[in-house]
């Protein structure tokens, strides 16, 4: 076996998935090749962390109680009627305020617009009267007479 091939057999060797011949070839190579030996030793150390993490577990006898109290707090906050009524009240008041605001705004706007329009119309009438006095210019009457 060459270095490249050895480097693909680390896990298989550690998990005893190699056959007898492959094991002999693997061990033979590792004992003579310094680079592969070094890489294999580092690999063993890193891979051993899995076993370490597996055995790290220590049962917490109060875990069930802890989780239950968390669930209880959550449930209470979900089901609290005061909070939900308050929330609904706040939302309704805000929505009503917004609605009234929009209605008032559009009413005021239309009032202002109509008064402005009246003023504009009046000023146009005055201006027309000044340049084309109705006593002299009667275009509609003249048109009717011609017909």
């Amino acid at each position, binding site marked *: 076996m060459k270095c490249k091939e050895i*480097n*693909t057999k*680390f*896990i*298989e060797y550690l998990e005893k998935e190699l056959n007898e011949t492959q094991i002999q070839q693997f061990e033979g190579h590792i004992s003579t090749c310094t*680079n592969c030996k*070094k*890489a*294999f030793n*580092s*690999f063993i*150390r*890193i*891979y051993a*962390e*899995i076993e370490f*993490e*597996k055995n*790290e*577990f220590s*049962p*917490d*006898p109060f*875990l*069930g*109680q*802890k*989780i*239950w109290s*968390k*669930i209880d707090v*959550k449930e209470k906050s979900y089901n609290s009627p005061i909070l939900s009524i308050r929330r609904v009240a706040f939302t309704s008041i805000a929505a009503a305020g917004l609605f009234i605001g929009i209605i008032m705004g559009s009413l005021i706007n239309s009032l202002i617009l109509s008064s402005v329009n009246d003023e504009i119309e009046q000023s146009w009438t005055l201006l027309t009267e000044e340049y084309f006095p109705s006593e002299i210019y009667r275009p509609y009457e003249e048109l009717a007479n011609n017909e």
Partner: protein
Amino acid sequence: MTDQQIVKEILNSNSQKAFVELVDRYQPLVVKTCRGFVASYADAEDLTQEVFIEVYQSLSNFRNESKLSTWLYRIAVNKSLNFVRKKKRESVLQSIDRFFTGGNRGSQYFDIEENSNANPEKQIQKKEDKLILKQAINSLPDNQRIAFILSKYQDLSYKEIAEVMNVTVASVESLLFRAKANLQKKLVVKSKNKP
């Protein structure tokens, strides 16, 4: 009490006793599964709490078609994957932040816990080994990672893994083969750069 009785008790009478028994019974399964994905035992414990809260909240959706343990594995795996993704996103944002603020810490999305009893040199080496292992495991595609963790951290058989992952036994074999090959590649490269 059997699993079915526990589930029935919780659903029908919201029994705290039954829930505590469920947690005690399946605590090792959930903690060890989560531990395979996350870098610290504390994170695995936090995730375990989240898993059991989810179990309680969605227990009414559990149908006795599969084993309770299979269902628990699925929830634990999903929670862990989401946790790791979230951590990864946070780490990317932090590295962007460091880039603009001129910080000099490298990108590490795993907070490896320290063992204060070991000597400093060994402690550093152990920390590095853990980091390399977790980075290698978490760089595997999701399916390979799940199969590998269920096999190595839980010693589940191919058949059991197939049930949890809802795939065929042949798929599990193939996933595990590829997971080991990929992991080996990544670890060999890293271990060559180490003393």
